[in-house]
């Protein structure tokens, strides 16, 4: 594990946001990918893990810092690094065979050799018989197999996987993941290191030798967790369960225990913002109070019965803590007295509690309300709010956060919203006062 293949040193990257100001996405990130290891990058969307992956792929350049592959600095995509995409990125007009041959053709490999090597990769990944099919004739899992074969045929030393399984349904994704791990174990892969970007915690635990947790705003490696379990790992086994537990806790409420952050202040992922919907918050809370948990639950277990994605669950749990409806300690989430009152209350009661809590605990909504009260017109366009959010996140994230925040505020009767005019204004009852 000592031979480094890819090395990143003090990488900084910022993007220009729509109002012209720069937004820091990666802040002084160091990272080394060594020979023979699988590393997983975990983090909320927008935490800069995809950007980091693309810097390693040579697709984007860092503003400052060094990126080197086998000791040589890289200026663009390197020959020994290949990538598997979340959305497969297959060329829809090329057959499976031609898609797999694409990288070989670009290298100028002779046609006979192209065919031979593509056939090998196709059979390695279990796609024999589909050589002549077009991608659109295949299922999602099959398409991703083509994407993997296309990357493997070049015999890359490093394989980057950008949320490679997240566009697939759970079963298919797990199946494909297990196949890849089996190949990795068998030594049939020419690849020496795997880097997996994911937001699925179990996936990271099942695959990786090392898990890095990213914090957002700005992106930093907040914690690192080595996983020494031998493979194949048992998804239902106690060790995996324990690790998933630890990671859940780490992502929802960061501790200093695994922290690699240089300055000790722990940056919360959310900054008092959330993308959780009211329905998700209510759903998670109800399941927490109901049987079998009766108020206190193991995070991964609660996540499982909540039947929403890891990301959504973490957001919802985060929001519960933020609103004072629950607390989290040592991997367990417990409902507060207020949370119980909320859960038992009728709709009106719930809205009242939510409104009160927002106006004490969610700075964004507090500010929104205050500036509305000060406006002479008593209304404000969405664009103002978006601009505020875009100081700390990119445009699409800002829109998602705003959508959630508006839903909260409307639910809590803090503001009213006119979606067709894209305006917020004070509720009628308040204006009369």
């Amino acid at each position, binding site marked *: 594990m000592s031979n480094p293949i890819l090395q990143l040193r003090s990488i900084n990257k910022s993007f220009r946001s729509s109002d012209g100001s720069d937004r820091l996405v990666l802040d002084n990130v160091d990272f080394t990918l060594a020979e023979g290891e699988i590393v997983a990058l975990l983090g909320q969307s927008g935490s800069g893990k995809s950007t980091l992956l*693309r810097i390693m*792929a*040579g*697709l984007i350049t860092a503003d400052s810092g060094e990126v080197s*592959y*086998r000791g*040589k*600095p*890289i*200026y*663009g*995509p*390197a*020959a020994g*690094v*290949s*990538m598997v*995409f*979340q*959305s*497969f*990125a297959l*060329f*829809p*007009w*090329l057959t499976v065979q031609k898609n797999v041959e*694409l*990288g070989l*053709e*670009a*290298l*100028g*490999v*002779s*046609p006979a050799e192209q065919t031979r090597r593509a056939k090998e990769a196709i059979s*390695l*990944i*279990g*796609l*024999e*018989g*589909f050589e*002549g*099919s*077009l991608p*659109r*004739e*295949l*299922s999602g*899992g*099959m398409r991703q197999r083509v994407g993997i074969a*296309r990357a493997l045929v*070049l015999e890359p030393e490093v394989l980057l996987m950008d949320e490679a399984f997240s566009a697939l349904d759970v079963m*298919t994704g797990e*199946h494909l993941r297990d*196949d890849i791990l*089996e*190949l990795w174990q068998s030594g049939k892969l020419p690849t020496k290191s795997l880097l997996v970007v994911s937001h699925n915690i179990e996936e990271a635990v099942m695959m990786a030798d090392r898990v890095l947790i990213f914090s957002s705003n700005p992106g930093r490696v907040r914690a690192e967790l080595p996983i020494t379990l031998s493979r194949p790992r048992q998804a239902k086994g106690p060790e995996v369960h324990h690790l998933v537990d630890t990671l859940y806790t780490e992502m929802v409420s960061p501790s200093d225990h695994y922290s690699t952050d240089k300055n000790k202040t722990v940056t919360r992922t959310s900054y008092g913002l959330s993308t959780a919907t009211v329905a998700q918050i209510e759903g998670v809370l109800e399941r927490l109070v109901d049987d079998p948990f009766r108020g206190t639950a193991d995070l991964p277990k609660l996540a499982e019965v909540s039947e929403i994605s890891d990301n959504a669950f973490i957001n919802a749990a985060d929001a519960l803590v933020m609103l004072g409806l629950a607390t989290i300690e040592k991997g367990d989430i417990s409902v507060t007295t207020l949370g119980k009152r909320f859960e038992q209350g009728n709709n009106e009661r719930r809205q009242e509690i939510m409104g009160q809590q927002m106006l004490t605990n969610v700075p964004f909504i507090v500010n929104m309300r205050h500036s509305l009260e000060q406006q002479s017109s008593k209304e404000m366009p969405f664009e103002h709010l978006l601009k505020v959010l875009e100081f700390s996140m990119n445009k699409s994230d800002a829109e998602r956060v705003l959508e959630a925040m508006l839903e909260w505020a409307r639910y809590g009767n803090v503001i009213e919203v006119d979606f*067709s005019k894209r305006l917020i204004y004070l509720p009628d009852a308040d204006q009369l006062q």
Partner: protein
Amino acid sequence: MPVANTIQRTSIRLPSARRSGLWDLALLPLVLCVLVVLAFGAQEMATPYQVGTAIDLSLDPLYLPYYLLRTTVRMFIALGFSVVFAFAFALIASRSKAAEKVLVPILDILQSIPILGFMSITVTGFIALFPGNLLGVECAAIFAIFTSQAWNMAFSAYQSFKSIPPELDEASRIFRLSPWQRFWRLDMPFSMPGMLWNMMMSMSGGWFFLVASEAISVANQDIKLPGVGSYIALAIEQRNLHAIGWAIGAMLIGIMIYDQLFFRPLLAWADKFKFEEGDGNTTPKSWALKLWRRTAWIQTGYAAIVRTFEGTLRHFRLKKDGTSPPNRPVIQHRHAERIWDVIISLVFIASIIKLGLFIHSEVGWPEVGHVLYLGVLTLIRVIVLIAVASIIWVPIGIWIGLNPRIAERSQAVAQFLAAFPANLLFPIFVVGIIHFKLSPDIWLSPLMIFGTQWYILFNVIAGASTIPTELRFAATNLRLSGILKWRRYYLPAVFPSLVTGALTATGGSWNASIVSEYVTWGDTTLKAEGLGSYIAEMTATGDFPRIALGIGVMCIFVMGFNRFVWRKLYQMAEKGLNF
């Protein structure tokens, strides 16, 4: 390694080639024949010719097949140049930010210059290029057809190139495709469906202006090249209604040949380039392509060509990867960008001053005022006609669009109607207007949208046929009816396509005003006061400053209208419209 056999293997292989022996034999002479005829047509283009002598033309329908051949070859060559131009333009404009800033506005201007404008400026140059040979005139005609086809194709390719999905762009970079490889493996296939659709529209445009481009009567020249367009021009001069009828027939056959032997096979072949997943739309079928695919010797030849071509792909590859330093250090772009902006602005200001001086010395400012007034007249015509056409065709288009069986066929019909040159209707309009003593200022106007209104119809059909089935059910379920049904359901659903159609129709109508505001039948000439007739008149006499003035004013009107009206409507359509 286990594979979940979740789907049935779908084979796209064609029926076995065993039975194709007969086709092979039958098709060989047929293909050879077509090649020989095309070669003959091409050879005829380079016959000796002295400017001033008249070329023999006959209204005898027996000559029509020959004329049709000449026209077909001409249009084919122009289309070829248009495709090359479109891709070259798109490549340069999408790869270089600096070039994009200049090229896109230039194309915008070129698009709004009427075909006669190009003709009057270039024809003498082309003739001088090949002295004593017909080739010069042929070039001028081909260039004129080219100018009626190329611009929208170039825009289509450019927009496709710009909208290539980011993950495919990333994949092409990760797998280190060279620019040559990327063009053939990514850019070209991705832009193919839009390109084909625009090629078909362009073809209609080519037919529409056929008379203007073959019967060259600009700058005091009067040359009629052998072809269907000149045949129509001659028939109009000699008031020969029979010949007009024959010409319509010949055109119909020409359009059908193009459709069956060229566009259908291409559409069927290009179906695989569609990026969106099949949404249940029928895939286009073509008997010609089927034949082509079943014929062994064609397939052998085709495979050989593909092999050679793929050889070039392997040859033009990237020799370096990301670990080798770039040849030249990346310079800071910000300053370069500023300087470029300054240069562009300076050139722009200089040309405005130059133009002002030119107008002042050559035509004088009162003339400019007059031409602007004429522009307003034509503008009023265009707006009124587009509005009328929309009111007529939107309900019909929606009705057709919701009936898939009719919608399928409407495409070919709309294509033919859009290709129908307005000149063919001159006799009806001239006789009618004189007989009923009508005002040409009003009654010549319908000619203007005669060829272009079909774009409105066709786009509305396309829009209505893509209304999701769930929405239809919902509308029925809610018992929407009357005005509410229109306001909440039909109009919002087709509005974006209506805007697209009306935009195309408006552009075409401005161009068509030149042939439709100045109408002749034998020695009778009717004129509607407007910008189109002004340009037509000035072109006939070869008054260059006034042609330039007319064209310039038309450009301003077209571009201003695009900027201030259509762009707003597009934004409205994008936001989702509520009536």
